[in-house]
């Protein structure tokens, strides 16, 4: 398989699969409420519809408002390139590491926040300030977790991290990994505006965070923003799936010469598993008051800190 094809596959999987994950989560939630829920592919229809619609841009906004969707989508897709969905794709040894991923996502967020402020509406500003608060609280624990994994792998490249954990058995029995997994899982919940932190289904002014920021967008712009959000969610899920649930060795046990196809299927299974986990979390918790979000962030920080600390003690 040549270089270009593997890039193509990576992008294809990340970009195309992303809206499906949302569909799965929604389906599980609906199932728990004994509803039928929207079809699995609903988000694809929505995006399609939005792309066809006209874009309305407020006259009071500056160029930042118009450029943001493209920057956000670009940054997120670039970050998605650095998080390999499959270790059999040989082309990811180049120098793009987890810090770059985190800060590409950070850049996307930065522009999103700016655009929220740019429109001058109350909700945009409110959403922006909340988004910044939450991200500031979560960044330390995300960095600590990733650095700890990096220390174990001996490199900050996402690919090497995944390789180093792929060789081992079921990692979550090891305290360090379990702690970091929980820490990153909390970050996943918070970063993707899921329930204890934000409610993706609501448009109630006082509680929304992500929705408030992109409230002024319409048409293509909105479609890009929504899509980027899905891809970002998939990036985190991929990180969790490939670093903490390296079931490749089991796969190798099942069929020694594992093909690309089978490992991709395994990846898909892991993604669905984590999506279900996210949905279950959403079902079983209630939304926190905004002022309680720091406590959740603190929990994530403790877990990350203890994970790092136990790594210092045990080595692995």
């Amino acid at each position, binding site marked *: 398989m040549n270089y270009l094809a593997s890039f193509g596959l990576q992008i294809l999987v990340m970009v195309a699969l992303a809206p499906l994950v949302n569909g799965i989560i929604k389906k599980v939630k609906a199932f728990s409420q004994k509803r039928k829920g929207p079809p699995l592919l609903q988000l694809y229809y929505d995006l399609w519809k939005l792309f066809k619609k006209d874009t309305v841009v407020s006259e009071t906004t500056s160029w930042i408002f118009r450029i943001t969707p493209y920057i956000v989508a670009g940054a997120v897709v670039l970050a998605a390139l650095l998080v390999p969905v499959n270790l059999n794709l040989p082309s990811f040894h180049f120098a793009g590491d987890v810090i770059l991923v985190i800060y590409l996502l950070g850049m996307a967020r930065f522009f999103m926040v700016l655009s929220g402020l740019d429109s001058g509406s109350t909700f945009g500003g409110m959403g922006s300030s909340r988004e910044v608060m939450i991200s500031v609280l979560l960044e330390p624990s995300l960095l600590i977790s990733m650095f700890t994994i990096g220390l174990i792998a001996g490199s900050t490249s996402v690919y090497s991290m995944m390789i180093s954990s792929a060789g081992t058995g079921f990692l979550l029995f090891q305290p360090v990994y379990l702690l970091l997994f929980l820490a990153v899982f909390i970050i996943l919940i918070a970063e993707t505006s899921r329930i204890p932190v934000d409610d993706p289904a609501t448009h109630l002014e006082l509680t929304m965070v992500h929705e408030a920021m992109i409230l002024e967008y319409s048409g293509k712009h909105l479609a890009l923003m929504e899509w980027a959000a899905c891809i970002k969610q998939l990036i985190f899920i991929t990180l969790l799936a490939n670093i903490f649930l390296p079931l490749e060795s089991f796969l190798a046990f099942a069929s020694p010469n594992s093909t690309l196809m089978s490992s991709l299927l395994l990846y898909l299974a892991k993604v669905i598993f984590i999506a279900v986990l996210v949905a279950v979390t959403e079902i079983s918790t209630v939304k926190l008051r905004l002022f309680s979000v720091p*406590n959740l962030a603190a929990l994530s920080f403790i877990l990350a800190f203890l994970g790092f600390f136990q790594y210092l003690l045990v080595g692995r």
Partner: protein
Amino acid sequence: MIENYLHLLSITILITAFMLVANKRVNEYIKTFQLQSLLLAIIAGILGVHHVSQTGDWEILLVAVITVAVKVVYIPYLLRTTVRKVEYKVEKDFFWNIPISILICCGLVLLSYFTITNIEDISDRFVKIFLINSTAVVLIGLFFMISRKKAIGQIIGFLVIENGLFTAAILSTNGMPMIVELGIFFDLLTAVLIMGILVFRINESFESIDIDKLKNLRG
């Protein structure tokens, strides 16, 4: 392999200590303490079964049973009745806000790390880890005591310190001699009873269990 599970459990005990610091309500304190004691009992149980299967020594298993009876069932029950009887109003119960408290606790974990790693003669790596984790629990318990205003909070802090000590003893030495363990349980039970009665009396004469109000004796 068994060390791996014990390590995981000792970390969960440490996490429950953190949870305690992050809690706000007295009933949640009691619940968290109960959870922590249950984890302690599980540790004792695992070790106990291990010992019974290897040497036929049933002492640690007995300790596990007593832990469940005393710390998981009876003391929480006692504390709950105490809380129900004193008129407890939900108000701000802590001196620092929670994130700062948690950062301080992280510092305490590091403190315990640097203290215990300085002991050169502990050769077994896991004994060292267990000691570090459980000393951290002791320190967090101490911090919890000084960070809460309600008398109940101090009782819980004391109990958490005891839990930390117990974890240290049982994980790093496979338990103290039987007579000592039983004596410690007896002391603990009496201590909680006495503290409970004192809480009643404080409530009667100060009309609150806010230890901020105990300021008559100074100098």
